[in-house]
């Protein structure tokens, strides 16, 4: 089969099993767009801004586990995509981004719409390629998918100069069946000796905590994790990226840990004598002050990326490998062991944990005058409980409220930008999820500041009839910023008031969607039911919430797990008692 470079690009994506591409055309990718036009296997989704193309591909990848694909033109198309690439990079999301480039003879001459996108993205991709010959396209694409999806996943960028896709140059095409690279050999299984060492510590532990993160979701190892929790009876906490690995309703789940984690999760970490970290990277939002992080604990760390291990926190038993096989082996070794974890010690440990849990740190003052953002999420959970439901989020207080108050029962259902914290992520990511699962209910919780960063995608949603439910927790502030200003800058709200807001409901309607504005707490449940009842329509719910609610508990940056600020509501209650 003889194909042109542009046809090879498209055919290779087909052979890779790609169903969707999110993209935006321009001069440098016109040959590729022409080849796309002449086939039916891949669906191209035209976004309204290249940032959204990368976020949508990213959302698709997070929900499905398959790599997301985006296609953008050179120059501004490529630079617009960078935020989405960096977002995927920070959360280890498998993605392949194709960028057009000026023709090879022009590279380096400041040609029209030329940027050195491989140079720009080098620090925020797992790897990138600049293709120089049409003969290299197929293999480069195969390598890109291989690199993006194996080991620690991540985005891979392929820069394709226009002349390489010339429709008049045709060469024989064959897609590589298997890729093997001498310079890249990701680890699969963990070392048996290390796993035995870990089990030695586990059966001796008196105050163990299992701390898991995005790696368990990315590695599709929830079942294995659940088994580990089952046979050990150890308490388990998740990072923001790990939610849903163990069902939130499981008694052994302590909630999220870290800056806005629960009292019981953070106190358990602080008092623990053994931390079993699985697919988590000891981020500073999780550890707080390193000097007072888990002062009494030995640490086991399972991670596929050796560079994650002992990066921030010195680890006692490192296990390099994919979570799934490692957890399988760990469970097997545990089952074969004659010595079991000390049941009495564990019971005593649980008693202390239950004491912390009894504080009910997430309680908030209910109101019948104004909608509390926490209440909005609790109700959302109630209304969507029986649905095949995915929730994406933007960045801010609403994201934290969603993480704290939506009980995720399954992995890949909670989709948010943790590492980069990219405002503007939520809506396009939801588009990617909905495209992957057309029958599922997909909602995006957002803030009035965040939503405006990619609001143009409401047009994409109407073009492709994506019946998303957008829940805007409108507090009139960049709430997360305002909270820090209230707590650490004596209430000087410097530029965190979101003025000149549009009428969001009306705006949604001009895009052809349904808009609602809800102000009264008494109306919210009915409004949700109505919105979720509209199966085929995007409903934009502008929910006016308490403007000055804060997210608690909170550990200030640079403080330890035991130095949590609790909600003033709880503190006042304690003083009364």
């Amino acid at each position, binding site marked *: 089969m003889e194909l042109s470079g542009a046809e090879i690009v498209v055919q290779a994506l087909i052979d890779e099993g790609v169903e969707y591409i999110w993209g935006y055309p321009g001069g440098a990718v016109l040959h590729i767009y022409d080849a796309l036009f002449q086939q039916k296997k891949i669906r191209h989704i035209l976004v309204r801004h290249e940032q959204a193309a990368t976020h949508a591909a990213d959302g698709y990848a997070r929900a499905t586990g398959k790599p997301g694909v985006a296609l953008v033109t050179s120059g501004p198309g490529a630079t617009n995509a960078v935020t989405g690439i960096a977002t995927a990079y920070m959360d280890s999301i498998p993605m392949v981004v194709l960028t057009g480039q000026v023709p090879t003879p022009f590279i380096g001459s400041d040609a029209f719409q030329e940027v050195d996108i491989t140079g720009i993205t080098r*620090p925020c991709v*797992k790897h990138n390629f600049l293709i120089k010959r049409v003969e290299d396209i197929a293999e480069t694409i195969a390598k890109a998918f291989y690199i993006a999806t194996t080991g620690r996943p991540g985005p891979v960028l392929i820069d394709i100069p226009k002349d390489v896709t010339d429709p008049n140059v045709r060469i024989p095409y064959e897609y590589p069946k298997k890729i093997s*690279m001498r*310079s890249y050999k990701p680890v699969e299984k963990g070392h048996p000796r290390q796993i035995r060492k870990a089990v030695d510590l586990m059966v001796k532990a008196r105050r163990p905590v299992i701390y898991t993160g995005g790696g368990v979701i990315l590695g599709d190892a929830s079942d294995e994790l659940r088994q580990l929790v089952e046979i050990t009876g150890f308490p388990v906490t998740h990072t923001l990226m790990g939610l849903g690995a163990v069902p939130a309703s499981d008694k052994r789940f302590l909630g999220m840990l870290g800056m806005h984690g629960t009292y019981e999760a953070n106190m358990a970490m602080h008092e623990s004598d053994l931390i079993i970290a699985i697919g988590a990277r000891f981020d500073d939002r999780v550890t707080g002050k390193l000097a007072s992080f888990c002062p009494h604990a030995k640490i086991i760390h399972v991670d596929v990326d*050796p*560079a994650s291990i002992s*990066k921030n926190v010195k680890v006692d038993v490192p296990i390099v490998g994919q979570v799934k096989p490692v957890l399988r082996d760990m469970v097997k070794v545990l089952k074969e062991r004659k010595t079991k974890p000390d049941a009495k010690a564990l019971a005593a440990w649980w008693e202390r944990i239950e004491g912390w849990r009894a504080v009910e740190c997430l309680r908030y003052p209910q109101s019948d005058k104004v909608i509390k953002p926490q209440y909005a999420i609790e109700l959302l959970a109630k209304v969507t409980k029986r649905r095949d439901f995915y929730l994406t989020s933007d960045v801010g207080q609403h994201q934290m409220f969603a993480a704290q108050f939506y009980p995720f029962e399954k992995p890949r259902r909670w989709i948010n930008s943790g590492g980069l914290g990219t405002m503007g992520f939520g809506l396009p990511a939801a588009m990617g999820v909905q495209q992957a699962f057309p029958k599922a209910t997909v909602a995006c919780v957002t803030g009035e500041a965040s939503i405006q960063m990619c609001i143009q995608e409401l047009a994409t949603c109407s073009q492709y009839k994506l019946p998303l439910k957008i829940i805007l927790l409108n507090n009139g502030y960049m709430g997360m910023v305002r909270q820090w200003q209230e707590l650490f800058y004596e209430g000087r709200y410097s530029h965190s008031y979101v003025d000149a807001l549009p009428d969001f409901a009306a705006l949604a309607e001009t895009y052809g969607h349904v808009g609602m504005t809800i102000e009264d707490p008494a109306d919210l449940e009915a409004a949700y039911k109505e919105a979720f009842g509209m199966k085929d329509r995007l409903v934009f719910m502008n929910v006016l919430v308490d403007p000055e609610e804060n997210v608690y508990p909170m550990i200030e940056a640079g403080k330890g797990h035991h130095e949590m600020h609790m909600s003033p509501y709880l503190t006042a209650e304690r003083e009364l008692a």
Partner: protein
Amino acid sequence: MRHIISVLIENESGALARVAGLFAARGYNIESLTVAPTEDPTLSRMTLVTHGDERIIEQIVKQLNKLIDVVKLLDLSDGPHIERELMMVKVKAEKGMREELKRLADIFRANIIDVTATSYTIELTGHGHKLDAFLEAVPEEVIIEVVRSGPLGISRGPKGLGL
């Protein structure tokens, strides 16, 4: 601690930028970096010298290994090894100084590789310390220009760093 690290890396455009970019982005110290293709033209060998405590060096080694283009890596400082650096020094060699400089070069087993009526260019190979010592020995006011390659390293014994 000073570490000297050998890296075998795919001889691709951008590979060097990835290594240099990694050091810049992560704030690692880099004292010297030399790179050239090996006997296998698809591979380059890089020798880099860096400083850092144990934790930083561990991260540097891991982060380098993580680069997709890096094929193999060895921290030479982990075992017995040999280091050599090449230096060329251009000095003012006027009448009164010519003999003195020639003698100095002989003492250090250096070669004079270019001669003019008023200058010598002296070539010297050895451990960095030896090159430093030579520069100390030459009167400062006669030095016109110094160029050093940065160290190259190889482990002692019969084993080699290869594929």
